[in-house]
């Protein structure tokens, strides 16, 4: 019953919110309360749906096939995350949406996006999967193009990629339906097992390529950063947290249930070259390239958008290792990433709400004015960089061990380069916004309201809580591994009991607490200290005052500009993309020119057609 409600509530919410916003311009408050209640209901239903894992409910009949929806372990995991994050986004938007704000369709599209995503993870056969997938990509387009004028063109960019993805998936479904005669996952899996090498590659490409486009893997990632960074900040948090991870859900489902392990291993041309290596190299590039591009960004949201591309690489590599450590790492990384990226983007939104800008070159010193946003961002970046005691560390530790012990040294190195790049760019983020001298114009900035602070507090608790006690989530990840057919991970409340070395986060955190206490005692030994203003600063004997812009924000990593600045600001993929668009334009120009000829050319065409027809017929016999 709950799974059915899980689809009906968002649908009802979408329709009511759409009607509501179409006809009543004022009354944002009523809209907000309705949205809040709607999403709280969805969260409750998602939690209660745990009891119905495994049951199937039947949807409408289509092409002689009854659509099947139901909950499995992994889809309940995703359902919780989707509903949780959208609830937090709505709570945040209660504070963030100003009264005069013109976002009438904001909540409607949020409900629709939820419907799309929940539909995708609930669908148990490939036709339902495709229909919900198509619906999801359209709602993402409409959600993205809210906000500024630039958002409209970047959302168009997303739409083109999404349509290409769904067309490839469409071809995939047609091919599998024709081969296996039905749409159900189990039947398709059995026929796929019987495929020879060539058709297996075709099936893998047709199924996995759209998932990689949606989860912005390396060569197909161009759409994500501009689209997510120009959307309205609350939506950027929501999208970069969960929207691209539905692509990874697809990868997990297709890799493990539809294609199955053996297919992945069998698909190898040489000793080294097989599907697993291909996906892992894509993952490696996705980890490294975006993190370097993020270093040179001057806008906070664009920097975070590039990171969501980068972190997707970790999840992809984790899933592709197909070892118990790796898959657990990948799945857990989806959860941990979701928590701290939303935390970071909410804090950036809090800053944008007060200062009106996310340009890293013009901000600074806001720690004195928005301490809570600072602490939230601090927790977030420690998590994103994967430093203990936050949860980001545990998932990265799992992925590292699986890569090192799995015999992929250079992948482990790529993962580590990604982490270091993240540390550098997140430090630039927190330094340029919160540290350094406070510019004069932000003197009267205040902390954000209750509704915007509540999600930040909750997420801080979650990031630290699941960091110190990773077992809370890892326990369910182990259950997912069982359902996916991967050997589950030996998990305790405090960490991992794996055979080749153990991780106990309780010990690490408690020792960290103890050493912090010792450091605090050393600090007290040293005599009293006095907090001074920002102008009481060493400036080689110069008297500092507000006329001196005494900040180092612009071009923070200048050394890297020299070494590889150019290579990442106009990368090969961007040039490739522009080349493709130019090719299409030239082809359409050629096609148009056919129809601009005079009458004589048209007559020539007709005669030519007749002769051609006869020749073909003669040849055809």
């Amino acid at each position, binding site marked *: 019953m709950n799974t059915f409600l899980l689809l009906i509530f968002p649908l009802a919410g979408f329709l009511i919110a759409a009607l509501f916003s179409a006809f009543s311009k004022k009354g944002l408050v009523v809209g907000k309360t309705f949205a809040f209640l709607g999403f709280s209901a969805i969260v409750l239903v998602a939690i209660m749906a745990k009891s119905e894992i495994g049951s199937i409910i039947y949807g409408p009949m289509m092409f002689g096939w009854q659509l099947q929806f139901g909950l499995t372990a992994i889809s309940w995991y995703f359902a919780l995350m989707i509903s949780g994050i959208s609830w937090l986004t709505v709570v945040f938007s209660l504070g963030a949406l100003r009264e005069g704000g013109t976002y009438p369709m904001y909540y409607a599209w949020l409900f629709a996006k939820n419907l799309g995503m929940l539909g995708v993870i609930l669908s148990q056969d490939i036709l339902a999967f495709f229909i919900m997938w198509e619906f999801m990509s359209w709602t993402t387009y409409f959600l993205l193009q809210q906000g500024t004028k630039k958002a409209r063109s970047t959302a168009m960019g997303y739409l083109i990629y999404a349509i290409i993805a769904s067309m490839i998936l469409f071809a995939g479904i047609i091919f599998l339906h024709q081969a296996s005669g039905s749409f159900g996952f189990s039947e398709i899996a059995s026929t796929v097992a019987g495929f020879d090498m060539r058709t297996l590659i075709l099936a893998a490409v047709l199924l996995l390529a759209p998932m990689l486009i949606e989860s912005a893997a390396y060569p197909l990632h161009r759409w994500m950063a501009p689209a997510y960074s120009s959307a309205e900040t609350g939506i950027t948090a929501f999208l970069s947290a969960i929207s691209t991870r539905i692509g990874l859900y697809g990868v997990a489902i297709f890799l493990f249930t539809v294609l199955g392990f053996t297919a992945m291993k069998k698909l190898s041309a040489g000793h080294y070259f097989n599907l697993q290596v291909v996906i892992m190299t894509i993952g490696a590039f996705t980890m490294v390239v975006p993190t370097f591009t993020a270093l040179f960004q001057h806008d906070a949201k664009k920097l975070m958008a590039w990171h969501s591309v980068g972190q997707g690489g970790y999840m992809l590599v984790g899933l592709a290792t197909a070892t118990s450590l790796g898959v657990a790492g990948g799945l857990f990384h989806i959860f941990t990433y979701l928590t701290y990226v939303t935390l970071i983007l909410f804090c950036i939104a809090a800053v944008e709400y007060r200062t009106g800008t996310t340009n890293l070159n013009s901000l600074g010193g806001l720690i004195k004015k928005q301490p809570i946003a600072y602490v939230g961002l601090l927790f977030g970046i420690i998590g994103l960089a994967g430093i203990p005691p936050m949860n980001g560390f545990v998932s990265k530790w799992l992925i590292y061990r699986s890569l090192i012990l799995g015999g992929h040294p250079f992948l482990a190195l790529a993962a580590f380069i990604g982490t270091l790049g993240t540390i550098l760019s997140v430090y630039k983020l927190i330094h340029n916004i919160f540290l350094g001298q406070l510019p004069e114009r932000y003197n009267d900035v205040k902390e954000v309201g209750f509704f915007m602070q509540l999600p930040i507090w909750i997420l801080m608790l979650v990031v630290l809580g699941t960091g110190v006690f990773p077992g809370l989530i890892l326990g369910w990840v182990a259950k997912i591994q069982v359902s996916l057919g991967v050997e589950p991970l030996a998990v305790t409340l405090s960490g991992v009991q794996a055979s080749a070395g153990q991780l106990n986060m309780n010990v690490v955190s408690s020792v960290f607490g103890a050493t912090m206490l010792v450091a605090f005692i050393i600090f007290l030994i040293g005599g009293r200290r*006095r907090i*001074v203003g920002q*102008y*009481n600063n*060493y400036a080689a*004997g110069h*008297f500092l005052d507000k006329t001196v812009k005494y900040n180092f924000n612009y071009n923070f990593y200048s050394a890297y500009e020299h070494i590889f600045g150019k290579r990442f600001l106009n990368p090969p993929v961007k040039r490739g993309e522009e080349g493709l668009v130019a090719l299409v334009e030239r082809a359409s120009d050629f096609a148009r020119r056919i129809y601009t000829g005079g009458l004589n050319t048209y007559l020539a065409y007709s005669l030519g057609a007749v002769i051609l027809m006869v020749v073909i017929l003669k040849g055809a016999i």
Partner: protein
Amino acid sequence: MEKTITQRSAWDKVLTKLQKRSLWMLHYCTGCGAVELPPTMTARFDMERFGIMPMVTPRQADILLITGYLSVKTLKRVVLIYEQMQSPKYVVGFGSCTINGGMYWNSYATIKSLDQYIPVEFYLAGCMPRPEAIIEGFTELIDRIGEGKANSWEDYYKNYEFYRKNQEHVFGTIDTRTDIPDDAKYFKIGEVEK
């Protein structure tokens, strides 16, 4: 709490004995005395044997070297640097220019005696003292610190009005962003333990 010289606790005595072995110099090289420092620091005289090391920023320095005449404009910067240093801090006046004006005794622009404006720990006579004199001066400073007698810096907190008046007489008011009387109360400097 800093008691009068006689009643310091045994623990204080031991620590100041250790503390004296490390002194960091801020090279505020005005005037012509700075050229005497490289020879004192390098191979022949090697000031580092006494734990004296050149440091760049006032926050970390203990010794402020005034190595020559101070024009009024430079005095403003010196006062700012002095107030940015962490006490206990010691000002060392190099050469006769800081003692009583030296050869610029009748100039309208240079100050004549340094200790009117910032408390000076000791002077080194000479129209630029040679390295031997510098080392002799510093070793004596180290002994004084060891005995806990080198507390000229408290004088700045205790008699701040005297110094402030002289400074304003010379270059008017400046805002060094540190409130000395308030610091004195906050750090309880100069209050004799009841």
